[in-house]
């Protein structure tokens, strides 16, 4: 049992070191959502106010609306980045070293997932701090209550990354993942626009957004930031997380997973 936690601590430490040492990655992780917040949202400011939708109790500007979606974006990108580093590890051989550990493979993968979630959480808090300096203030309880939502979001989206990484043979293929997974997931969600706005232009788009697990992750974060629990979003996010994790474990299982065919 103790060794399992030593492994967890070591993997978290390794991920954290990798994150801190790659300064560009750290800066990019912060700059990306800030560009969306300061540049993109400025263009859509909605100075006259967006219609009231839960969890908001009054009219808000677009900048306030977009913040939970950008928290989701940080976690989504970080989940993918973590998966990318797994592919890198596999190519470089350090993955093999890790897998020689006597600990079960599912535990090692879970450790990677937890490590990625910790990094995502720290990034989100750094982003929220800068957003607060920029003038976007949330209820103070929101900063605390969002933590469990961030953990669920981190695990769900990290598991998605893991599942995808089990499918990817080479580093180069990861660009495809960016185009076919991250962007559709991000744009076809409630991160940038409320779902009722989507329904105005296309019912089909609205329905796609409504089943997108990323929408539910974003809504879970949005409600938590305002001290509320969205049970539907929680249910969908957790279910998606379990499914993605099962896929990842299956994908990484050498006896019948997808990795078998890649050797």
């Amino acid at each position, binding site marked *: 049992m103790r060794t399992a936690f030593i492994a967890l601590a070591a993997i978290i430490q390794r991920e954290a070191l990798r994150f801190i040492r790659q300064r560009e990655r750290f800066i990019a992780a912060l700059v990306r959502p800030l560009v969306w917040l300061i540049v993109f949202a400025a263009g859509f400011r909605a100075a006259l106010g967006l219609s009231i939708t839960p969890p908001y109790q*009054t009219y808000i500007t677009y900048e306030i609306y977009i913040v939970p979606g950008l928290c989701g974006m940080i976690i989504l990108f970080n989940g993918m980045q973590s998966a990318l580093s797994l592919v890198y590890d596999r190519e470089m051989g350090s993955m093999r070293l890790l897998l020689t550990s006597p600990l079960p493979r599912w535990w090692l993968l879970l450790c990677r997932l937890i490590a990625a979630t910790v990094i995502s959480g720290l990034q989100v808090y750094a982003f929220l701090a800068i957003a607060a300096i920029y003038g976007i203030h949330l209820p103070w309880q929101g900063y605390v209550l969002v933590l469990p939502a961030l953990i669920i979001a981190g695990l769900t989206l990290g598991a998605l990354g893991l599942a995808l990484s089990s499918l990817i043979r080479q580093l180069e293929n990861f660009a495809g993942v960016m185009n076919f997974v991250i962007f559709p997931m991000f744009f076809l969600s409630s991160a940038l626009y409320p779902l009722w706005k989507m329904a105005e232009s296309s019912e089909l788009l609205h329905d796609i957004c409504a089943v997108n697990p990323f929408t539910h992750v974003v809504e879970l974060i949005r409600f938590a930031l305002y001290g509320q629990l969205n049970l539907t979003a929680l249910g969908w996010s957790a279910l998606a997380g379990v499914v993605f994790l099962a896929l990842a474990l299956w994908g990484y299982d050498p006896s019948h997973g997808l990795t078998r065919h890649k050797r």
Partner: protein
Amino acid sequence: MTLKSLFLASTLIPLATLAQSAEIWVTNEKDDTISVIDVDTLEVTRTIETGERPRGITFSKDFSRVYICASDSDTVQVMDPDTGEILFDLPSGEDPEQFVLHPDDRHLYIANEDDAITTVVDTQTRKVVAQIDVGIEPEGMAVSPDGKIAITTSETTNMAHWIDTETQELFANTLVDSRPRHAEFAQAGRELWVSAEIGGTVSIFDVASQSEKGKINFEVKGVHPDRVQPVGFEFTEDEKTAFVALGPSNHVAVVNAETYEVEDYILVGRRVWHMAFSPDKSKLFTTNGVSGDVTVIDVAKRTPIKTIKVGRFPWGAAMRP
């Protein structure tokens, strides 16, 4: 009746009276109703029917009566706020839009929009005391704290008309910016503030000389200047800060009442019109006509807390402690 029930009745009734919290009464212009909002729970607790097109609303000093301008019924209705029952109608002249209760708690000064007159009504004898010719489309009404001066602003003539309340005659007329809609005395009656909807300004007059001593302009980031239309405004207890409703810009401006500088803008509902404070002045309730709701502002933090759905086109607001 048992002793126990007698005891319960004697203790519960005063408790129930004590438990009644302050309310904000909002007139809904297109629903012909009043929405009553509980200041603590921020929920609508009652909806009361009124005459046609209720707009101006004010309470008597002891809050035992509420006066309502039922514009399209051409009357001022007097209601018992406990029961919501109309006690009687007052003769008001045609199309009463706004009014103000004189500090004597007896005389109502009513702006008759269609008739270009200000009607003075004695609420005790229920008779018209005087009718004063003013400019075209009078709307804004104010009375000085000492009760000596009444003001009517006329929307089309673009003037503030100064009425001597002893003689009930005009003693001065001052030009203001386009379409003045609301007037209030400030600084213990030394200043008169008048908002101009189309002009987009609030003018401040020295009451002693009736001369303009300042003007406030507004600029809401990201909103076209044409939409910035000041209407209703209220002062904090210390009169150091004024909150000004900016109509279709959907913002309330926070103005330093000493330097006349705009310090902040607060986002509220669509076409914000008038407002009322909670009794401790910690919350401000704004009527948002087009969106049919009332936004509650935390006065200290200058942030909106909640927006409450009321009837269609909420117009006036008054507080009942």
